């Protein structure tokens, strides 16, 4: 018989009411947002909101919407991590025979479970809306931007890893959530401001946030390919609406590197600190 960390973590989270409520809220808010977006009326010639839901654009749209609610996933990870300190259960489990790396791996599994849940949520809704809104030909693009789902998966893992690191360092739920907010909305943006615009793209929160940018609505038309080619020039960046963005693959590599860094720092701290 092997110690089953997945089973241990599932016992902890599946019977935790606050966790279930927040997870339900995440799912509900995401659904409502998708439904509301589908009802928005946009007066742009050649553009219909329904186009956002057509393959292959659907994946960009759904990961972008899902990205709004990453904060709830981060709060969930912070909550379950800080609980271990508040209840002193990390200490007790260490006494009972878990290694410090097991404690880290347990929370890593929670992050993965949540990321898989979010991945499936976006994939299922994307597939459903894509099929419902699209006519036959749009299905051909099903796999075209499918990689965006994996990018979104990385984004959730990266954000949750950052939340986990903050929780390990701060140990209090309220303090950790506040720190995460401040880091995302104030601290990093202010620090970024001191750097050249080109360098700003390399900051952790910016890198992770840029993984699921606002869909290029002006390049999404239901018109002919000829029209589409022309519209492609109308990117937000070309119009000066957003700052320069790194190529996606660079963003992905950076976000993965930052995620590894967050986990390594958390591991280092967990090895040294008292429980």
């Amino acid at each position, binding site marked *: 018989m092997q110690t089953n960390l997945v089973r241990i973590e599932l016992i902890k989270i599946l*019977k935790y009411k606050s966790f279930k409520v927040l997870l339900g809220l995440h799912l509900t808010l995401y659904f409502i947002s998708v439904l509301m977006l589908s009802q928005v009326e946009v007066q742009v010639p050649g553009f219909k909101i329904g186009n956002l839901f057509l393959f292959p654009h659907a994946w960009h749209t759904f990961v972008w919407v899902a990205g709004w609610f990453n904060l709830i996933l981060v709060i969930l990870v912070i909550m379950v991590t800080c609980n271990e300190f508040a209840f002193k*259960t990390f200490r007790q489990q260490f006494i009972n*025979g878990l290694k410090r790396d097991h404690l880290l791996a347990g929370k890593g599994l929670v992050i993965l479970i949540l990321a898989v849940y979010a991945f499936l949520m976006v994939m299922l809704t994307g597939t459903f809306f894509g099929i419902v809104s699209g006519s036959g030909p749009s299905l051909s693009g099903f796999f075209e931007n499918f990689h965006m789902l994996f990018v979104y998966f990385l984004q959730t893992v990266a954000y949750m890893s950052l939340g986990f690191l903050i929780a390990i360092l701060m140990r209090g739920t309220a303090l950790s959530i506040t720190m995460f907010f401040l880091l995302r909305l104030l601290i990093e943006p202010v620090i970024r401001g001191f750097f050249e615009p080109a360098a700003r793209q390399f900051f952790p929160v910016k890198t992770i946030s840029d993984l699921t940018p606002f869909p290029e609505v002006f390049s999404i038309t239901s018109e002919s390919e000829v029209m589409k080619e022309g519209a492609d020039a109308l990117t937000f960046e070309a119009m000066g609406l957003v700052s320069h963005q790194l190529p996606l693959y660079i963003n992905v590599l950076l976000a993965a590197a930052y995620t590894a860094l967050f986990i390594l720092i958390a591991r280092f701290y967990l090895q040294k600190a008292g429980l």
Partner: protein
Amino acid sequence: MSKGQVYGILGPNGSGKTTTLAIAMGIIKSQRGKCVWFCQNTPADNSWKKNVGTLIEVPYFYPYLDLVDNLKIVAEIKQVPFGDIFRVLQVAGLYERRHSTYRTLSLGMQQRMAIASVMLGDPDVLVLDEPTNGLDPQGIADVREIILSEREKGKTIILASHILAEVERVCTHVAVLKNGRLLADGPVAQLLGRDETLVIGAKDNEKLMKALSMSEMINTSDFREDGIWISLKEGFTPEQLNRYLMEQGIALSKLEKKKKTLESQFLELVK
């Protein structure tokens, strides 16, 4: 500490009992010295802990989980079949409350839950830090019974406590700590037998005192209401003393061994 011993760690508040156990379990790193488990494992290597049931200070469980779920987590960590959960809940007297959440338990019941958790998987070694904390008289008696029955099974038990009467009843060996230092250790009988006290009396106690003051056998003597309290120097026996006094023309009307309690010995040591 050897297999089968019930080893009591005694000491006043702040003497380092819990710290010693925390070092042994790898929660705190020691500044000096070394702790080895099962002749080979260090506290940092955790594999041996599955064979040790530990309660340090107060028990820590998930307040929102019921008792069975809390013990399932412990069982998973210790790789113990879930069936054992119901056995230990029975032993700890919590079977009826098995579906209550941990937060609804009284302090005494939380302590019982800790005992249940410690017993899970029938480990060879039990480490118990103040296991009777917060328990009612019945609970204290239950814990004593559990410890005695585990002792019967040949289990090794390390017990930190300041309830000396309990320690005296269950322990085979004790160590006394003060300010992080070891004052004395050894088998309970040996520790209590040290500096044995005799109460003696004769018709003429003044003559007796005079004879005692001339003897080389006497370590201390104290004239009290119920007789003269003396302790003999090492190597001398009450028989030798009696013979000496007979030679001095004194017939003893009273010769009584005063058995020391652990409490009196403890208080003398930590004074």
